[in-house]
């Protein structure tokens, strides 16, 4: 008996194809490559982190999306996954980790606590990580199921695939970072 290998392929981007030739834009090719090789940095602080462990496990297998390589250093990470309650003392830590990630970078807030503070409406808990870093995708749930995390991850993939290459150099992006206090105004 021979085992037929299963290869997962992604659809090619829009473009013109002829025998042996395929022409498309640079943006789309880079977006395609980036969106299928995201290296996440797990910032797991509580129960959503447990759900993330299930997501990385064999049953749900985030590796199918090209993300089996978790990056525990922000320098090589593309996606900051904040999972769990972020106390106010932890806020600057999240911000520094985000700041030290290489461009382009994305952030996903997993679960109610990371998105809005959740049930912890108290003096000590940050009411959503979007107070310290810009968030791209919010995943609801307390905690969300692995399917929901994967769904949020796929929304991130859409964003990554469709982002213009020059966005991170734009004045608009600078102003966004200034708004969060990450970049000082000049």
């Amino acid at each position, binding site marked *: 008996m021979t085992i037929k290998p299963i290869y997962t392929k992604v659809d090619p981007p829009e473009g013109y194809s002829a025998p042996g030739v395929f022409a498309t834009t640079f943006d789309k090719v880079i977006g395609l490559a980036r969106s299928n090789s995201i290296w996440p940095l797990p910032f797991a602080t509580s129960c959503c982190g447990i759900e993330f462990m299930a997501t990385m496990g064999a049953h749900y297998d985030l590796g199918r999306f090209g993300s089996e390589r978790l990056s525990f250093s922000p320098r090589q990470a593309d996606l900051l996954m904040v999972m769990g309650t972020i106390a106010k003392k932890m806020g600057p*830590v999240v911000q*520094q980790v985000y*700041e*030290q990630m290489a461009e382009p970078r994305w952030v996903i807030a997993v679960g109610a606590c990371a998105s809005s503070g959740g049930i912890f409406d108290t003096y000590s808990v940050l009411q959503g990580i979007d107070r310290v870093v810009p968030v791209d995708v919010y995943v609801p749930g307390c905690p969300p199921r692995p399917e929901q995390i994967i769904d949020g991850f796929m929304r991130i993939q859409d964003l990554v695939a469709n982002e213009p290459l020059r966005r991170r150099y734009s004045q608009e992006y600078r102003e966004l970072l200034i708004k969060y206090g990450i970049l000082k105004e000049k």
Partner: protein
Amino acid sequence: MEREFIPSDYLPIIIQSVVALGFVVITMVLTHVIGGKRKKIRTLRKDENFECGIEVRGNARFPFSVKYFLIAILFVLFDVEIIFFYPWAINFKEFGWDGFWEMLLFLSFLLFGFYYIYKKGALNWED
């Protein structure tokens, strides 16, 4: 017969040196040329060495007790010498009594060294 070396024999070495140096210089220049002209976002915290999110305090380059080094290097010394026992232990029967005496001699050197460092007080942590 005495071999004579003429300067042209050293040509490959010169070529290799030039290639090695040229590769380094060209790579360094090229990264700047193809790296893009647009201004990248750099901040003070992004350029920091450490990346765990906790603020860096103090300097890592401060003097600390030499005892750590002594203990570590002595450990490495005796650890490596233990490795020499393994081939002897495996061929224990083949080496017979001769091997045994040789190993005992080796061990006595070791133990003498150990006695020396012990007398010198290298293992004395308190003082």
